[in-house]
């Protein structure tokens, strides 16, 4: 099990009801973390429409996560 801090933004934060939470997860990749939080909060948004960062660095869904990482879940962006 790994201890992962998950941070939520915009719509994800509203759905989760919290800015962030620390979870004990059996997760190998960022995608695993996303899947787990979808189960907790029920977001149907597909990962392909979203982005992820690990420890403030943009990452891919296939990026590995380590014990103690902070995973930032970005819903579909809409700057400009």
């Amino acid at each position, binding site marked *: 099990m790994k201890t992962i801090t998950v941070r939520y933004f*915009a719509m*994800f934060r509203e759905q989760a009801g919290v800015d962030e939470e620390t979870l004990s997860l059996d997760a190998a990749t960022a995608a695993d973390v996303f899947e787990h939080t979808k189960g907790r909060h029920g977001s149907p948004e597909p990962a392909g429409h979203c982005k992820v960062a690990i420890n403030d660095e943009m990452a891919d869904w296939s990026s590995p996560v380590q014990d103690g990482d902070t995973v930032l879940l970005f819903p579909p962006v809409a700057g400009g």
Partner: protein
Amino acid sequence: MIRMTTDPIDPDVLRRELFDPAAGGYCAFEGWVRNENEGHEVLRLEYEGYEPVAVAEGRKILAEAAEKFPYLQAHCVHRTGMLEIGDCAVWVGVASAHRDEAFKACRYIIDELKHRLPIWKKEHYASGDSGWVNCERCAEHAHG
């Protein structure tokens, strides 16, 4: 240079900061808050961004633009917080020796930042409802 701000954007000030004696041309894009989107009357827009990643990703975009369309100076400012109709939400300015690089680099920067920066906007409608732009599926879920 790229930055985020909660203060109003003043294009005249930003334009002057781009001055370069070797520049023969300057191109800027301003994104404004519009009063309508997909048939809904919009009263205001609420922008949220995550600055550490947005600035890092924005710097990459400026570097990519410099490689593709060599320019002399480029700045980008994105505003966050509650914006009213007509407010400037984003400003991109590029100065270059010749106009072609300025036009193309400016277009590249605004197109990429819209798709890549962790920035979100929530529309507040005349109906009293609100919705996150580009997040239709999660919005449907929330309403369902």
